[in-house]
């Protein structure tokens, strides 16, 4: 593979989906972990139809999390309505982790965390105190 020519220089920073995005941790604006990138949503490509030369390339629209992870492990595809999205425009920084510009609690993907906090942890004495 080493004898292949390098590709034409791109105009911005390169991100390989598997390497830089998928399965990375996502933290909110206070550095609290929110989820991991379980999958990525891109703009649709029309299947079975020729792609015209010069057509705009797909772009990433959202980070997905939740049940979609199971389909990456076991195959199949999740129903569209069950996808839990974080909008790509909420991502501010892509490094070792992906950083968001919003609060984790405001995102739909954290509903399980909030449910467990309210229904279980909050009912055990001491759950809201700092450790001593």
């Amino acid at each position, binding site marked *: 593979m080493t004898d292949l020519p390098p590709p034409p220089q791109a105009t911005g920073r390169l991100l390989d989906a*598997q390497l830089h995005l*998928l*399965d*990375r*941790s*996502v933290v909110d604006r206070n550095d*609290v*972990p*929110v*989820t*991991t990138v*379980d999958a990525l949503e891109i703009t649709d490509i029309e299947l079975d139809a020729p792609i015209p030369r010069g057509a705009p390339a797909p772009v990433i629209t959202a980070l997905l*999390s939740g049940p979609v*992870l199971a389909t*990456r*492990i076991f195959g199949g595809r999740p129903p569209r309505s069950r996808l839990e999205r974080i909008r790509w425009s909420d991502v501010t920084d892509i*490094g*070792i*982790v992906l950083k968001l510009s919003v609060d*984790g609690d405001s995102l739909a993907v954290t509903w*399980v*965390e*909030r449910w*467990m*906090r309210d229904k*279980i*942890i*909050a009912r*055990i004495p*001491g*759950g*809201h*105190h*700092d*450790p*001593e």
Partner: protein
Amino acid sequence: MKNLSGFALGILTAIGAFVDIGDLVTNAVVGSRFGLGLTWALALGVAGILLFAQMSGRVAAVSGRTIFEIVRERLGPRAGLANLVGSTFINVMSLTAQVGGIALALQLASSVDYLLWVPVAAFGLWIVVWRTKFSVLENVTGLLGLTLIVFAVAVFLLGPDWGSLARQAALPAVPSGEQPATYWYYAIALFGASMTPYEVFFYSSGAIEEKWTVKDLTRSRINVLIGFPLGGLLSLSIAAGAAIVLMPQSIQVTSLSQVVLPVAAAGGKVALAFVIVGIIAAIFGAALETTLSSGYTIAQFFGWSWGKFRRPANAARFHVTMILCLIIGIAVLLTRADPVLITEYSVVFAAVALPLTYLPILIVANDRQYMGEHVNGKATNALGVGYLVIIMVAAVAAIPLMIITGAGA
């Protein structure tokens, strides 16, 4: 001065934290059956945990990322999940073994049946995990665990034939009456007992809990470089005591009560009091580490909020996971499954699962995006690859040997 006492504290904690139920049982079993003929396996394990803990601590301090985030990120969801399932299985098994160990030690102190102590021990663990600060739980159990030094004192009091002990250690041989396969099986068990994955999960996540930065690296390096080998010496003295007192009488260790008999023979009731306090504290510390590790691994894999530095309400799924793991542990123990047997299996399975977490750390410790200038040097990599080979061989050989030897029977 404060710095110096900080150092001392760290080292002492590392010694106390090194020994858990797996080390206690495995070293005593090996000592009573093979004398000091497997000292090399212990040494190999201690050097291995040094290397592994050091690398994962460095990765955590420099990049702020812990083992299971890295496992998931590098191996992807499928291999990562297999890894998570395996590691969680071993974590819960170790946790079960430790809770059983605390209960057995409390039985030694009280002669009340250990089964009655199991829920008490588990509840105590949960309260500490729920309410106590990370540094407190680490230091208290580590320091109390230091009383295990009485194992080393006992060896001197027994006045053994040092020449014979040194010969056993330096010229390993399979004793008559033991099969070579059994010898190798216990070599892997001893290696696995020293290189338990949960210790590394804990060390790696602990670096985040205590908010380590690159500056703290030297200190952590000294802590483990001095503390773990001293912990290894403690382990060795457990084996030596068993080799001196139990082996000549054809006693093969199968229970915790036998582990402490050499100490009683050497130092009487006073020594026994120390050893029981030490065992309870050391295993309690290890049980806390395994409980937290089960929470750490699962939360980090799925990207949940975790950590003792947060209030439980701010790491809800993390705390729920730990409660569930404790409940599973209690349930297993209440079936009257022998905690010593669970321990013996857990150290061997630990050796089986080791490559799964070791390889990603070795890779990421070379990744400049994570590590910047702190990537592994040539020497560390040579050592790292050498250990990768050893770890893979041990992992591949463990299960066949377990079947052939009937789990070392």
